Structure formats: structure tokens, C-alpha cells
């Protein structure tokens, strides 16, 4: 689940929670240029897809913007 209010997603029992941008634009940022907005959204979505392959013990938060994730996301795209 991609969510801007990720704690709520975790407490309600979603197993894989991806930190989204904002409530009104979970997978984007309208302040960015179209190209950068696309890359930003891709980073969130590819992180979400990657987590489907990861076994989790319970509700777990994944942050697409965390250090180290960039390369992985770039690889995947």
C-alpha cells in the first residue's frame, strides 16, 4: 500500500507500506518539472513493486527516498 499517512496504513494491518508523497498526490509532486515528476513517481511505484518480492514478518514501512534505494529503483526502471 502506497500512503502519505503511512502510520495509519501500518496500524490498520497493511503488510507492505510504501511512503508516498502527499495525500493529494501520493505518487507525484506537481512542483517538479514533468520529467522529474515522472522519475519521482517511478521511484515510488518501482519500490512498491520490488517490495512484493520481499518477505515481511508483519506491517513494514518502505521509504522510496531512503539512501541506497535510488540505485535499486534506477536498476528496476
Amino acid at each position, binding site marked *: 500500500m502506497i500512503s*502519505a*499517512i*503511512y*502510520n*495509519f496504513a501500518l*496500524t490498520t494491518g497493511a503488510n507492505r507500506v510504501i*511512503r508516498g*508523497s*502527499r*495525500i*493529494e498526490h501520493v505518487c507525484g509532486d506537481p512542483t517538479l518539472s514533468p520529467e522529474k515528476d515522472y522519475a519521482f513517481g517511478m521511484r515510488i511505484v518501482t519500490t512498491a513493486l520490488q517490495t512484493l518480492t520481499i518477505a515481511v514478518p508483519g506491517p513494514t514501512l518502505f521509504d522510496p527516498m531512503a539512501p541506497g534505494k535510488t540505485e535499486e529503483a534506477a536498476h528496476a526502471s
Partner: protein
Amino acid sequence: MRLEMGTFPVTDIVFGRTTRYDAGRLTVDRETVLAAVRQDPRIAKAELEIARPGESVRIWPVRDVIEPRVKVEGPGVCYPGICGRDIATVGRGRTHRLAGMGVVEVSSVNWHDAGGDFVETYLDMSGHYGEMYPYQKLVNLCLVVEPDATLSEEVKNYAVHKAALTVADQLGEAVRSLAPPEREVFELTPVDPSLPRVVYIWCVHSPQAMSGSPTAFCTATYGLTQLTPPWYLHPNEILDGALTGPYRTAFAMSWTVANNPLFLDLYRRHGRDWNFLGVISLRTEWTTQTEKQLMANQTAKLAGQLGAQGAVVTWDAGGNEFIEVVRSIQACERLGIKTVFLTSEDDATDGAPTMLEPLPEADAIVSTSFFKNVTLAVPEAPAVSRVIGSPTRIVRRGSTIGLHGGVDGVALPTTGPMPPPWRYDDHYGFSSLSCAE
């Protein structure tokens, strides 16, 4: 900061040659008042009508109900900041108010054009539906007002609300130099230090995220509606209208904010039952987890800095805004500040909790009944003899139930039977409804 509030009870309103107040009877010079409204070139149409308690009258739609208040002594103006009014800090000196009446803002102007939010509150002056709201007991002077159709939605909002405030100001002037029949002094005097120290955390919606504009019209703090960190307000500032409506709910009108019974009780019992520290006003609908948690932390920190041992918490919104509200409660409790939360409840479909994020720290909750009229099983309001406002209503986001029942865009007559609005949501405990039983 000392404020003397002079109250002029209004028992009837009539139209006459000069605007004046005499022993409960308010005479309104309709043409002079309307001329003041029409001075604003943004106003295309304005009329005044009177609605009295018990009449078979429906007011459709209602954007706001305003209690006329006028600053007689001390700096500033009542309802400061909003619609370009003076922003001098209010709360000192003397204020006169016309009690038992409302100036009702009746207009088709919608809150904003970003979708989702519609003006859908109406008022019946008789019958079961109307009895659920405090405004049915008021003598109401209705301003039916429409702006220049070519203006933007935001400008239209400010134009029609300014028009309603202009009417309220004109009425307030009638009692400026009269001796008030009732007087009450409000002051946070030093009290017995053994009394518990209590703060009121008053959460109010910001339309910024929903509308996409930091200046969209809504409940305002000195005119500001945008998402801002928590404010500390002296309770006298509230009495002078520093926090004012309306928001899209029936219980977040200017009148309801000015007459919030929880706030008034907290203030009036200062020095007797507790030490009232004032109001922390938190804007809600932040749009990330981080922002929501930050506002909760800062609200609790401010309450702690004020020396609070207890906090009473209300909110006027719904949905995700619950997060910053309930997390403020959690943050207070973690600092050792005991909390009581006054809120409506959602329906518990399939055993779901009646609150979005039930946190264990929020363990003292007073229910003001259900959020939705449909959960309360409020019946349709019967047909009425007269409508003040629009003779038709347009079905928005057509659905099978309630006020939106029907085909999207269809116009229905407003004199006929009408379903209650989707939302009830008594924010401040005006009614005696509860879900505790």
C-alpha cells in the same frame, strides 16, 4: 486582557425607517443596509428577508450564520482580518453583541471550485430537522446575495461573506452607544494556584489542501485560512471573533464558533473549578504523516509550555484530519497532560471502529452523536410554505440517498420535502444527542 461583553437580546426583527434597537425589538432600515452592501461592485444582487422561529420557512442554502458584534471600546474590530478587515489584536475593552439573532448568508456561491465540497446546509424554522440545530431558535435576518458571475470562486466567496459582515456591522452600529441590558466581564484573573490548569485545543479545518489555494475561504484565524502551526489565542480574542466561520458543516458557522458552549463554560468556570489557560488553535488537514505528527508534537509542547495539566480537545472536520487531532491527544498524554476529547462518531459498519485511528491514549472521549444524518436516521424534512433563497436546488454528485439522491445536475424545488444533508457532526456539544447510550 479584560473584555466587557454587553448583550442586547433580540426577540423580534421588523423592517422600518431607521435601524434601531428598542427593548428586544430590532428595527432594520432595509434600503440603507442594502445600499451599504451594494456599494461593493462585486455584488450583483442582494435582498433581505426575516425568518422567525416556528414559521414554515426554509432557508436554502445557508453558507453562514453570524452574530452581530461591534467593538465599542478597545483596539480593532470584531471578526478581524477576514474579508480584508483590520487585523489589530482584539480582546480588550468593550464589545456589544446582538444575542438571539443571526445574520444568515444565503448564496449559491460554492466554497471552492476544486470539487468535492458543496454548500449543502439548509435551515428549517420549524419541524424536527430544524430543531437539531441552534439556529432554529434565532430570529434570522437573511441576506440573499449573489456576486458578479464573472469573478473567480475565491473572490465570490469573500464578496458574499463581506456582504453578510456588512449587514452585521450595520446592525451592530445600532447598539454601539446604548447601555447594554446585560453585562459580563471576561478576564483571565490570577486564581488559587491549587486549581487544575486546563487548556482548550480547538482544531479547525484548513481548506488549503482540498482547494489547492492558501487563501481559499473558510473558518479563519484573523482572516487566515491556510495551514499554519498551532496558534495560542487569548479567550477574549475568540469572543471578539478572531476565530470565525464558516466551514462547510452546519456546526462550524460564525455564530456557532462565537457561541461554542464548551468554550464559554471553560471560561466562565475559570477561577472556580479550574485555571483556564486559553486556546490553542490547530489548523488541520496536513497532508503527510510527518507534518501531522509535527503539528501534534508542537501542539502538545505549547500546552506543556503553558503549564497545562489538562486539555479539552475538539475538531470540526473529518477523514484524515483525525490523525493530527488524535496524535495531539497522544502527544499531550505522553507529556503528562490529561485529555478529554469531544467528537462525533462514524457508523460502525461491519464492526469497524467509529474513529479512524483509535489510540489507547485517547481514553476519555465524549460523544456528540453520529457524524452522519443517515446513521441518526433523521427523516426527510416536510414541505414548507415559503423558501428564502433559491427556489431550486441542484443535485450534486448524484446518488441514491439523501440530499444527493437523484440524477447529477437535476434541479429540484426547494419548497418540497427535503432529505437532511449528509453530515450532522455536532462539533461543540450544542445538542443533547450522544452515542453513549
